[in-house]
């Protein structure tokens, strides 16, 4: 199979306006990946499947990755000349910047016809809260049908164009997305008939403000 840089060049020539870039993998496996922009992903996926040199007809693995917001501290150094003529003073300025997080969906593609692979393809959502929709690649590879449902269920990425996008492992009444890094398990104190110590404090807090103390995941189909 051609190198990823060559592939990117070919894709950019074929799809003008698309944003395609190589995401390097610094680890020992060196399985580098291609980042697609959601607007062109569906067309590019069809190209990857139908192109004769690639023929990536088998989508082996689809999965999500959660990258939460992180604060990046940027240190800028500035040298201030000493007015008295001494050596210049170096001052450090720290600046905190919030880097927005995103959800990432990773596809591992192989070719059954030409026996090569994997080509790792990724897509990223704009953020983790309200702009989480991505194009579904299930119409291109049906293998993604259950796996995209799983990503929707556990991560909360919404796949536009999926034929049957429902929760798959959690029950329908469940509210949260358990594989996210900031997921908090719902408090369940039913196992403790006589709460004491820390647990008692928690229970009291919960009883005082049930909506605030119990995360949304507690509202389950089995309990209602």
């Amino acid at each position, binding site marked *: 199979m051609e190198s990823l840089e060559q592939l990117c060049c070919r894709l950019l020539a074929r799809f003008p306006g698309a944003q395609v870039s190589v995401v390097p*993998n*610094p*680890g*020992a*496996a060196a*399985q580098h990946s291609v980042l697609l922009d959601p607007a062109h992903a569906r067309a590019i996926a069809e190209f990857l499947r139908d192109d004769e040199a690639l023929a990536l*007809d*088998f*989508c*082996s*693995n689809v*999965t999500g*990755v959660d990258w939460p917001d992180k604060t990046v501290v940027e240190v800028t150094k500035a040298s201030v000349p000493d007015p008295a003529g001494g050596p210049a003073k170096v001052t450090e300025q720290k600046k905190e910047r919030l880097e927005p997080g995103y959800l990432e969906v*990773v596809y*591992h593609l192989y070719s*059954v016809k030409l*026996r090569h692979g*994997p080509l*790792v393809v990724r897509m990223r959502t704009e953020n983790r809260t309200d702009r989480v929709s991505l194009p579904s690649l299930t119409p291109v*590879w*049906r*293998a*993604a*049908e*259950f*796996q995209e449902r799983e990503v929707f269920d*556990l991560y909360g990425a919404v796949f536009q164009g999926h034929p049957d996008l*429902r*929760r*798959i*492992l*959690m*029950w*329908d*009444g469940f509210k949260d997305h*358990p*594989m996210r890094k900031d997921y908090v398990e719902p408090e369940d104190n039913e196992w403790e008939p006589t709460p004491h110590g820390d647990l008692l404090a928690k229970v009291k807090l919960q009883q005082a403000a049930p909506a605030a103390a119990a995360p949304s995941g507690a509202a389950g*189909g*089995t309990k209602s």
Partner: protein
Amino acid sequence: MSSTGESPLLPAGGAHVRAVTDEFHGDLLEVSMGPHHPSTHGVFRMMVTLDGERIVRLKPVFGYLHRNHEKIGESTTYLSSMPYTDRLDYLNSMTNNWAYALAVEKLAGVPVPERAEYLRIILAELTRLQNHICLAGFLLQDSGASGTPLMYAFREREKILGLFESLSGSRMMCNYQRFGGCRVDAAPDWLARARNLVNGFGAFLDEFEELVTGNEILMARTQGIGVLTAPAAVGAGITGPMLRAAGVGYDVRKVDGYGLYPRFSFRVPVGAHGDTYDRYMIRILEMRESISILQQALKDIPEGPVMDPKAKIRGFRPKPGEAYGRIEGPKGEIGFYLISDGTPNPYRYRVRPPSFINLTVLEDLCLGHTVADSVVILGSIDIVLGEVDR
């Protein structure tokens, strides 16, 4: 069933029956098969819509055994997940271990000594034997051959599990592979026992085949039932014996050549019709190939260490990066996708479960067939719910 707005957990048992009226087909009946139906091999539910006895719609419902295996894997160290992979597909803990060890070895660049690679191949092929013979037994049980074939299969399987127990200390939850080799070495008398078993397995297969393969009832129940075409199988990500029964000779052992498989000569059986009978037959033929691999491996196994001496057990922190490792498990391609951020725990730990993805085509296979056939078709897909629901 979001269409009806009900929770999949509420109706328990197989007695949940409701009439659905549809002006085109007359009275359709919606039946919930499972989650505690004996033919579903665990807690799995099929919402079947019937027109008479014919299936017109089938929606699988998952999640009864879901414990978020992946989240647990991300909250512990790399090694702590190894015994937990046994519980994915609890019939095939050795191959689950191998797939996970392979992915971590790719992630961290750990070499594996030759003897360990031989032991892995021996154990993986023994696992394949016991999985396939179990599947044949279960399939026959599902299609009405009560008792005898399953007991024959279990008798042989127990011998293989005995080998696993004497090597790893456990029949099914082996926890045997490590990153960079295997946990303990096999003694010479263990290898002699394994040779003995492998040499006798062919005769058992002959006996088993004589009992059932040409059986008229089995043929009537399985031939032409649940036909899967090659393009549909590849598109839906079907792997393992099910893909090869559909006529696609794709075997990760040949394609990726992981471990030392390129050293072994074996054939990849391919089906011609893609029906349930082919899926049964492919397993029998694969067992014959496994016997040949085992005989070669047990003859050539070299002396030497079974662990890479530089492999780190404690304080194992792979460099940042990611890796996807896959092997040919008995049920299909089992893969692990790992992302490391340099800490002792994986940042992302993902299992590619073959039997979960093989269920994608369940509805297509069952449409137009009877309820009794759907049981046989499900049996031929070979699922384990520990892996489907994770």
